[in-house]
């Protein structure tokens, strides 16, 4: 099989799987830290019980996040050696900082936190989980700085022999406008993911009226506030990011909207079935002016379409196809926004009930809410698919095409790629199965199991 296809499949597979675990790690670390702080401040043992309970679920997930993350770090060199040579001068820097500054702190302190319950003073122990949460957050930041360079390269210059891109301005590089939109979006996504797991597990216990009802009321209250905060922030951040993308990667937005022709005012697609070869609609329902509004906060303004952008890019970069897979971009965008909208409504509903002091959920409503905890995963994964697929055919936008970044076939054969992809699929499958099994087991077992 084609090495490019195999390497891309492997990257997509390992990255999406890695990202199954990361948002929950982000969200639950901060949530656990909040609960433990509440315990230190009030001395109320229930908060400690809850911190241990959620911390335990956080840990199950954390391990898988770490091991799948190590795969990501080495995969660039293994499957994308030409890419690594081309951008190492730049892309390697945030990766190294992530390792030295964020991951090392996170990994060191998680051990101290887990084993230190009876060895450290309360406040110091609470500080260690905050450090873990900070480490996870910084980790996400530096990885997104690296990713943002691929989406919107800044702060670089080409080497004299144009064999590679070199760092020209480190501060321009980390103040890449792209990352300051992407990072809040991803972080808030993590908060929602954590919040929804908390809501789902708490409601599971409340609906079944287990013995720990009172504790899970508290948990639900914290979780509802947390999830709503995350859901609102992720929506606002997503909106800001889309407006930014119109300037930095208009093709991604056009593909996400299946907008073939430039429009002013531009309409928003509710449902489009398009012909990618002919670049036209087969069937479409569109809301007039809404896309302009989303783009510019007013009901007019031009949004460039795929055809015009293709022409612009041909003039700029030479002949070639600069259109990403429209069907992938279009549907991943809809899955992300759709899941996000349902999440916002669900979390607001739960918060409303909690604020009213009503913790009784019928088993039907309860079941619906419990299953809604899958939504953040759908949103997170489709968000990344949109971000990465929408950048194609570029690996580094405007600088390096995806096929140019691959390890030479003489070094890494398609057999090696096929074999490793197969092995990763099997192992990640087993890992995910075990992870979900254990999360479920300990979520159901309740507070005593984490003591």
């Amino acid at each position, binding site marked *: 099989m084609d090495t490019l296809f195999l390497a891309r499949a492997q990257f997509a597979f390992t990255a999406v799987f890695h990202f199954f675990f990361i948002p929950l790690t982000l969200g639950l670390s901060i949530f656990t830290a909040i609960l433990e702080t509440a315990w230190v401040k009030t001395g109320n043992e229930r908060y400690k019980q809850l911190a241990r309970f959620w911390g335990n679920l956080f840990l*199950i997930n954390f*391990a*898988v996040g*770490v*091991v*799948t993350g*190590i*795969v990501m*770090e*080495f995969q*660039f*060199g*293994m*499957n994308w*050696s*030409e890419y*690594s*040579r081309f*951008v*190492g*001068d730049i*892309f*390697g*820097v945030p*990766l*190294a*900082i*992530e*390792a*030295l*500054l964020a*991951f*090392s*702190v996170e*990994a*060191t*302190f*998680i*051990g*101290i936190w*887990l*084993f*230190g319950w009876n*060895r*450290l003073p309360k406040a110091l122990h609470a500080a260690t989980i905050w450090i873990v949460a900070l480490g996870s957050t910084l980790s996400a930041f530096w990885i997104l700085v690296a990713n943002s360079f691929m989406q919107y390269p800044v702060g670089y210059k080409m*080497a004299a022999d144009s064999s590679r891109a*070199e*760092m020209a301005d*480190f501060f321009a590089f980390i103040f890449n406008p792209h990352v300051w939109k992407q990072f809040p979006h991803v972080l808030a996504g993590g908060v929602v993911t954590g919040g929804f797991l908390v809501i789902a597990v708490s409601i599971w216990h409340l609906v079944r009226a287990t013995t720990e009802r009172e504790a899970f009321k508290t948990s639900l209250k914290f979780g509802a506030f947390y999830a709503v905060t995350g859901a609102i922030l992720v929506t606002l951040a997503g909106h800001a990011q889309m407006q930014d993308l119109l300037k930095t990667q208009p093709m991604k937005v056009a593909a996400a909207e299946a907008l073939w022709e430039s429009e002013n005012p531009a309409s928003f697609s509710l449902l489009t079935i398009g012909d990618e070869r002919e670049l036209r609609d087969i069937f479409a329902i569109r809301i007039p002016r809404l896309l302009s509004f989303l783009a510019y906060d007013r009901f007019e303004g031009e949004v460039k379409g795929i055809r015009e952008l293709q022409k612009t890019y041909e003039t700029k970069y030479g002949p070639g196809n600069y259109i990403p897979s429209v069907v992938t971009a279009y549907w991943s965008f809809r899955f992300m926004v759709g899941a996000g909208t349902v999440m916002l409504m669900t979390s607001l509903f739960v918060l409303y009930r909690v604020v009213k002091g009503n913790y009784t959920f019928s088993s039907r409503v309860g079941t619906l809410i419990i299953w809604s905890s899958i939504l953040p995963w759908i949103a997170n994964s489709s968000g990344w698919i949109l971000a990465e697929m929408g950048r194609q055919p570029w690996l580094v936008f405007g600088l390096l095409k995806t096929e140019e970044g691959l*390890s*030479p076939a*003489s*070094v*890494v054969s398609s057999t*090696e790629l096929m074999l490793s992809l197969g*092995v990763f699929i099997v*192992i990640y499958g087993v*890992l995910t199965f075990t992870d979900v099994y*254990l999360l479920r087991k*300990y979520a159901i077992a309740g507070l005593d199991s984490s003591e």
Partner: protein
Amino acid sequence: MDLHSIWFIFIALLFTILFLLEGFDFGTGILLPFMGSDDRERRSVINTIGPFWLGNEVWLVSAGGAMFAAFPGWYASLLSGFYPLFLLMLLSLIFRGAAFEFRSKFSNPALKRVSEWIIFGGSLVPALLWGVILSNFIGGVPVDASGNYTGALSNLLNPFALAGGAASALTFTLYGALFLSLKTSGSVKERAVGIAKKLWAPATLSLMVCIACSVTVTSIKPGILPLLSLLSLAAVLLLLQKNRSGVAFIMTALAIIFSALAIFTNLYPRVLVSNLNPAWSLTIYNASSSEYTLGILTVVALIFTPLVIIAQCWSYWVFRERVSTDSELEY
């Protein structure tokens, strides 16, 4: 000294710290299935490295990140060229990390037992592979003019590299046994000392074979450092007979440091030796990032590496007590 050399030294340092720390936790993992007569005893063995193993793995991630940033040419050629070795390494680390975290959470004894054997394999394979990989750094591999590895897997499994793998696996296991003799008590401790005594001879022998191979099948000039490493290891037997496991542990650590020094001093200023044409070897100059990038990395490393080291020292201090079967166990 130029920035390139500083970064070569820094990466050598990261690898040395990695072997010093993960060395004993790999060793502990390898010994796990043989260390306890019941679940509680084996749990106590895992708990000796419980607070540390992930912190130790940090140094792998740091070494990888630093290599990518400072010497992208090295990182790219090495990882694509040694593909099967690194794939095996990653798979082992995935299994091992998950098994550590999951073992105590299974209620079924059979699953606990499976987790122990996964930890065994997940520790043994990387312990072997590091010796194989490092030997190949200096032993020389087919690297062409563009810096790409052109050989097959069989080139990487040459006699010198295999001897290196055996030496690293056996030394790390001995190191793990000595660590356990310091961190456990009762029957587990006695067993650890017994195993350390038995492991001494094969570990020392494998190091001798490795040094002999370096002289016979490669063009490496070993110099004094491998002999210092051998001497340090030789001292371990005497110390064990006098029941001084603490000093024996330190001497094993010294043997690891001398071996790492031997490799990196022989390598400098090259980072991957070509056995097709010496001029095609990757060096700290032709495989490096720009001066500007190296400068930024230096500032970052100078600030954050000491902080991480301090934090890790603190964690070893907090968890300095011996772990017994009566201790409160987390894993």
